[in-house]
């Protein structure tokens, strides 16, 4: 069994209070991330630490968490669902990243999901 290497990642997460709000990137440090965690598990851990500090958690859609439904729609470093082909965000494991990496996390971008349309609010990571 490989070592459980822990890493620190610098996340840049898109936060937007609503469809009409301006939105901005927030820099958040993810500490003690295990290489075995999935991307969503990392987000869960980051959220737990935000909530403990009294801050608003990062909202993201998820459902099956087993790579079937496609709900976990994040754009990771510019790629929908991250760097791997045929791999949803929930099946992306943190060993694909290394200690000290910067990861930009945004909602899906598409004309039909522009920041001024109501449907943007549905599949939103904010």
């Amino acid at each position, binding site marked *: *069994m*490989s070592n*459980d290497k822990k890493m620190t990642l610098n996340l840049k997460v898109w936060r937007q209070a*609503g469809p009409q709000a301006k939105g901005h990137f927030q820099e958040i440090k993810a500490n003690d991330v295990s*290489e*075995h965690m*999935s991307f969503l598990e990392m987000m*869960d851990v980051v*959220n*737990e630490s*935000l*909530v*403990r500090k*009294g*801050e*608003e*958690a990062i*909202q*993201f859609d998820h459902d099956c968490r087993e*790579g*079937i439904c496609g709900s976990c729609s994040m754009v990771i470093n510019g790629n929908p669902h991250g760097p791997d082909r045929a*791999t949803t965000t929930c*099946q992306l*494991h943190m*060993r694909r990243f290394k200690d000290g990496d910067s990861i930009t996390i945004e909602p899906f971008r598409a004309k039909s999901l522009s920041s001024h349309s109501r449907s943007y*609010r549905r599949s*939103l990571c904010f």
Partner: protein
Amino acid sequence: MDEGRGVGPSGEAVFLDFADAIKRLGKDAIAEKYGNLFDMYAKITDENPYEQPMRMYPAVHYTMGGLWVDYNLQSTIPGLHVLGEANFSDHGANRLGASALMQGLADGYFVIPYTIGHYLASNKLEKVDTNHEAFKPHAKKCPRASTNFSTLRANVPSTRSTKSSATLCGEYVGMSRSAPGSKQQSIKFADCGAEFWKNVAVTGEPNFKNAELEKAGRVADFLELGELMAKDALERNESCGGHFREEYQTPDNEAQRDDANFSHATAWEFADGSSEPSWKEHREILTFEYVKPSQRSYK
């Protein structure tokens, strides 16, 4: 696992080793049958299951049965149709595994498109407004409940309670139950609940999209459900279907039913109002006319 022989860093896994099968049938034959599962495992663990035993960990991920529906997938509430795993229709009382997609597709793709039209065409859909007597008391309760969560400025995310209550359920009302276990469950669950209500933190806006609020509300429901599962397990003094009571088994460790006393389905009615929630038992007697239940045997 109970004997301390579990493997893996958690000590709670067991090994699934295909070495003998690969030696006997060849790697290609195994890859053909299980290749996609092996690939998924390799992706998750970064280990090669063709060369190393796989670590398996038991998890509960469905319940037995579901809501009763007719052939049009309508429940006993007019207009309320229930599809997929939420209903009982494809499996009855003993839901077989690995059929989630089947249930969703069978009902969602092959059935409801042909049956919902009948309901819509043969019923006048009256306009409903918020003066309905069923709506008014809840319209008062819900915003208050949301605000209650948000003003509890404690500091433990609700996920902690999700994990502790899940562990309790797995231990006491999982695959096997017992009378002392069910009683322990009730006590520990009550503690878990007290801990949750004292320490839960829900940040974010109460009147806007708020996943923490949604989670906290669900945990509150799960805590009640967990206590009820223990109560129900304690009441049913037999082993039947997905309910295995250690005290009621055959000499070969198979389920031992007591059809004379327990040939019924139980529904529990929540009785609010007092300081302690209480449950009222309702029984639906089951009579089998043509196909009678027999003793289950996997031999």
